[in-house]
Every structure is written in structure tokens, then in C-alpha cells.
């Protein structure tokens, strides 16, 4: 009896070793492309800046309501890297706080959208040919057909325009794309012999959906998630730009571009900061997405 348990422990250790080895291989494939490392580094740096904004920003109090007219309209200098705005606030500090809103937006939207869409897509694909499929597919078609800005506009006019409602509007138009993605993959995998084999041995539907079908699709889903993160920022910025997202003085990047664009071209540095922030974050996520695609394509 004693011997059997040590045997089992040995196997468990072997498994750990193999799993570590697999992670190492994935990291190796990711590392092969320098650009994905650049993307990952930028995102990590921006994320740290967002988390510790209070300590990193030179003028943390400038994030919100703050007025010092004697400092207004100052061009970039050593004291203010990206100059100051019309109220004398440090643009660089505000951009750092802007990253915080950007990541919050990405996090909340993807957290709502990805699980919902993926689970519904798996179910719709698995129950192909039943009313469950029709219901889910038609419902997502309806949401896909609504233009996101119009949807955001109507939500903002019913509720109040703020960053949370803007994120809700973005999420509402986004989840069907994950349904489409997982649905089409599930349909093509549904009748593969390995699914039939598991079913014929008595595997539960939950097992089939999340242990057999989902792992195969994970790479594609993760790649889309990273590429979408940039798009969330872009749509969020567009909604803020037309005044339906975060309201001043919130240091949201889109809101800031909208506010400061009135002062173009004389005070170009004001909009340059938040605009560059948006470009940087989208670029970084796209580079990361390419790297993640390489990781899964190599298998």
C-alpha cells in the first residue's frame, strides 16, 4: 500500500515538470518575436504607472479639479514634460491617471464580454439544430446590427453620461462577436471523433464544453482578447470624445483629447499627451496580440 502512494506522488511530480516544460516552450515561442516583448513591456509599464499613479505622477492633485491660472498654457518643459492645460494642470500627470481609466475600461468590458460571449457561443454551437442555437445566434445578430455609437448615445440619453455607462454600451455591442467566434469553432469541432468518443463514454455536457471544446479554442480567443483591448480603448475614446463617456474633470484619455482639441493648434501639447497615450496603449496591445498568436500557432 505504501508503495502505491509514493508511485502516485512520483507521477504528480512528473506532471508538474511536464507542465513547467510546456510553459517554458510557450514563453520561448513568444520571445522569438522582439516586438511582442516590446508590447508586453509597454503594457506592464503602463499598468504599473496606472496602479501607482499617485506616487508616479509629479502632480497627483492635478488629476481632477485643480486651478492655477498662473501656470496655464505652459509648453513642455523639464518641470512639465507635456506642458500644462488651460487651468494650469500638468498634462503628464493627467495622462498617467488616464491610463488608470483606460485599464479599468479594458478590464471591465472584457470581463463582461468575454465570458458571456464564449459561454453562449459554446452552448449555441453544441446545441446546433435546436431552439437554443436559434435563440442565441439571433439575439447576437440583433446586437451586432446596432451601431455602437448610436447605442452609446441612447444609453447615455436614458441614463447619465459617465464612464460606467459608456463601458456598458461598449459591452452590449461587443459580446456577440465572441459568440460568433466560439460558435463557429464549436460547430466545426462538434462532430469530431474525439467529442463522440468522450460522449460515448458518458462525459457530461459541462465536461465536453469546457474540457474538450474550450481548450482548443483558447488560443484564438486569447488572441482576439488582446487585439480587442486596443479597440475597447479606441471606441471608449470615441464615446468620450463626443461627450457621452467620462465627463470633465475626469482624466479619461478620450475626454482629455476632446477637451483639449479646442485649443489646437496653438496649444498642441495639450492634446498631444492624451492622444499619444491612446496610440501607445493600442499599439502595445496589438504587438502583444501578435505574440500570443505566435504562441498558439506554433503548436
Amino acid at each position, binding site marked *: 500500500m505504501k508503495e*502505491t*502512494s509514493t*508511485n*502516485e506522488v512520483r*507521477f*504528480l511530480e*512528473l*506532471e508538474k515538470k*511536464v507542465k513547467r516544460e510546456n510553459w517554458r516552450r510557450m514563453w520561448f515561442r513568444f520571445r522569438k518575436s522582439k516586438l511582442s516583448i516590446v508590447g508586453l513591456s509597454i503594457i506592464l509599464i503602463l499598468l504599473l504607472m496606472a496602479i501607482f499613479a499617485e506616487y508616479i505622477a509629479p502632480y497627483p492633485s492635478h488629476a481632477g479639479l485643480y486651478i492655477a491660472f498662473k501656470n496655464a498654457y505652459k509648453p513642455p518643459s523639464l518641470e512639465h514634460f507635456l506642458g500644462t492645460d488651460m487651468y494650469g494642470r500638468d498634462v503628464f500627470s493627467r495622462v498617467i491617471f488616464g491610463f488608470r481609466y483606460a485599464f479599468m475600461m479594458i478590464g471591465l468590458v472584457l470581463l463582461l464580454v468575454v465570458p458571456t460571449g464564449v459561454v453562449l457561443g459554446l452552448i449555441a454551437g453544441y446545441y446546433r439544430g435546436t431552439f437554443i442555437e436559434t435563440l442565441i445566434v439571433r439575439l447576437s445578430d440583433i446586437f451586432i446590427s446596432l451601431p455602437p455609437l448610436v447605442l452609446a448615445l441612447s444609453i447615455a440619453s436614458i441614463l447619465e453620461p459617465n464612464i460606467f455607462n459608456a463601458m456598458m454600451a461598449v459591452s452590449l455591442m461587443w459580446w456577440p462577436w465572441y459568440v460568433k467566434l466560439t460558435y463557429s469553432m464549436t460547430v466545426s469541432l462538434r462532430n*469530431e*471523433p*474525439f467529442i*463522440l*468518443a*468522450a*460522449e*460515448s*463514454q*458518458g*462525459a457530461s455536457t459541462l*465536461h465536453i464544453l469546457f*474540457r*474538450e471544446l474550450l*481548450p*482548443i479554442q*483558447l488560443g484564438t480567443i486569447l488572441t482576439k482578447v488582446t487585439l480587442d483591448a486596443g479597440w475597447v480603448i479606441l471606441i471608449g475614446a470615441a464615446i468620450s470624445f463626443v461627450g457621452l463617456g467620462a465627463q470633465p474633470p475626469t482624466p479619461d484619455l478620450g475626454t482629455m483629447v476632446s477637451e483639449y482639441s479646442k485649443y489646437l493648434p496653438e496649444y498642441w501639447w495639450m492634446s498631444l499627451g492624451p492622444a499619444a497615450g491612446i496610440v501607445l496603449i493600442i499599439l502595445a496591445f496589438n504587438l502583444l496580440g501578435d505574440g500570443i498568436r505566435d504562441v498558439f500557432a506554433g*503548436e
Partner: protein
Amino acid sequence: MQDDVILYVSGLKKYFNTTEGVVRAVDGISFNVKYGETLALVGESGSGKTTTGHVIMGFYPPDDGKIIYKNKYELSVPMKKRPLELKRDIQIVFQDPGTSLNPKRLVKDIISLPLLIHKIVDKKKIYERVAELLEYVGLSEEFMFKYPHELGGGEKQLVAIARALAPQPSFIILDESTSALDVSSQAKVLNTLVKIQKELRLTYLLITHDLGVVRNISQRVMIMYLGKIYEEAPTEKFFKSPMHPYTQMLLSSIPTLSEEDEKIKPKGIESIGEIPSAVKPPSGCRFHTRCPFAKPICSQQDPPDIVLDSNHIVRCWLYE
């Protein structure tokens, strides 16, 4: 029903609706499988042999007929409605191990699934049992932590066999299980199958088009053509004295190496034509369009069962 029959099939029909019309994949076949034997179901592609296996597995329900398993289970119910013990007792090994193993699951996950579902061993001893099963089919325990793509074709099929053995079944359908493999791994897989059948007293339904495999491992043979069974005989009789012209044609088309083999091959029957479409099968005996001995009656009426001796049945007007 006799006591030694594990699977009883009677009047089984399975039609598929396609854009070209109704495909009569299986059109009224009856047979028995006895405990512990290997029954080969032989036919060209399109003959309905794989459909027969899949109906028995419950992948789709039959349109007509009876399938009784172990004298108490009705197998015309679809897979999802079958009791769990039935899903344990009947297993299948698919043709292509490349698609029958999930590419994202480790070998030990694949094999431990049936162990967990049917609670075959204590959870703490799962790994050990997986290693035993691997060893039993001739693979070392290192294969546990590999993904299917790291394995060769024969090794994958052995993993699929280990998975089928895991829940301790009594009946295994071998659905062209060796035809996708190269010759050397084919031999290894066949030997393994023969060994485990002897030791575990398993019953096999061997679905194949490879007469060499049939000769090596089966005790009885049924020959299927366009959804119907035309000859049924013990393996030895099947190869020594084939009665149905179709059987003779198939056997004469096997390439031989030795003169000895050449001598026992039926002569004078050339393989002509292709298998007709199952959408509009020929009337009467479905083989009459390719049969060199066809008589007028062959195209008009279905041939009756002719029992040559107790174990040799042929459906052909020539022997009326």
C-alpha cells in the same frame, strides 16, 4: 435468443436524407455477435459497414429494426439516453487516431476520463491505473504526459485502445481501427488487440475493408454490399470456399505473394465496375449489375437466405 449471443441485430435500417435523395446506408440487416468472438463486417467504402457500427454506438438512431445487447438493453435509443453502465460496457476505437484524441489533452487526461466517469478506481490511484493501462497496450508510462501530436500513428491508436479498455468493457467496435496506420504499426496494433481479447475475454465487432486483417484476427465474417449482408461464414470457410460472386470477386482481387496463396484464390472473376450509388440501389440482388453470373431473376427479386451448412449463409440465386 440464444444464451451465447451478446448482440442481436434484426432488420436494422438506417437512411440518410441528402440533397441527392435518400441514401439507404443500411437496408435491413440481421446478425448475431457471440460472446468472446471477433465478427468481421467487411465491405467496400459506401457499403454501410461504418454506419452499422455507429448506429450500435448510438451516434444516430436507426430508422427501423431491433438491436438487443446482452439480452436486456435496447440499443435503438440514442447515446444520450442510454444508461451509464451501457456507456461503460460498449466501446469504440475509431479509424483515425489523429482525430479521435483531443489535441489539447494529455494522454493521461484522455485515458483517465472514463476511469473518473465510471469510478473504476479510487481518485488517488488514477495515475497508477493509467500507467498500467498504457503498459498493458505496450506503451511506457512516459506517454502519460505527452500530447497526441507528440505520438506516432500507431502509438496514438494504442492510446485510443487503452482509453477503450479503461472502463472495463465487454464489447468493442473496431471501426477500421488499423486502416489509417502504416504496415508495421498495423501489426503491432493487431497483435495487441488479439492479446487483450484473449486475456480480457472481449467481444469485437471488426469493421474493415482489409481482408488481411480479417483473416488474421476474426472467427466469423459477414460481407456487406450496398446496405445488405450477402454472405456470412466462419473465416476459414470464407477464404477457402467463398460462395457469393461478390465475395469471390473481392478475394480474387487480393494481391498475392506466394504461389500457395495464388492457388486458393478463386479464379475467373474479374473485378468490374464500381459500387453503385446507395441513393438508387439496383433492384433485386444489388450486386447483379456487376455479377458475371447474373440471371434474369437476380434483377427482379431479393435473393433468399440459403443456409449451406449451419454456419455458412449466402444470399444468392445461384444456389437456389
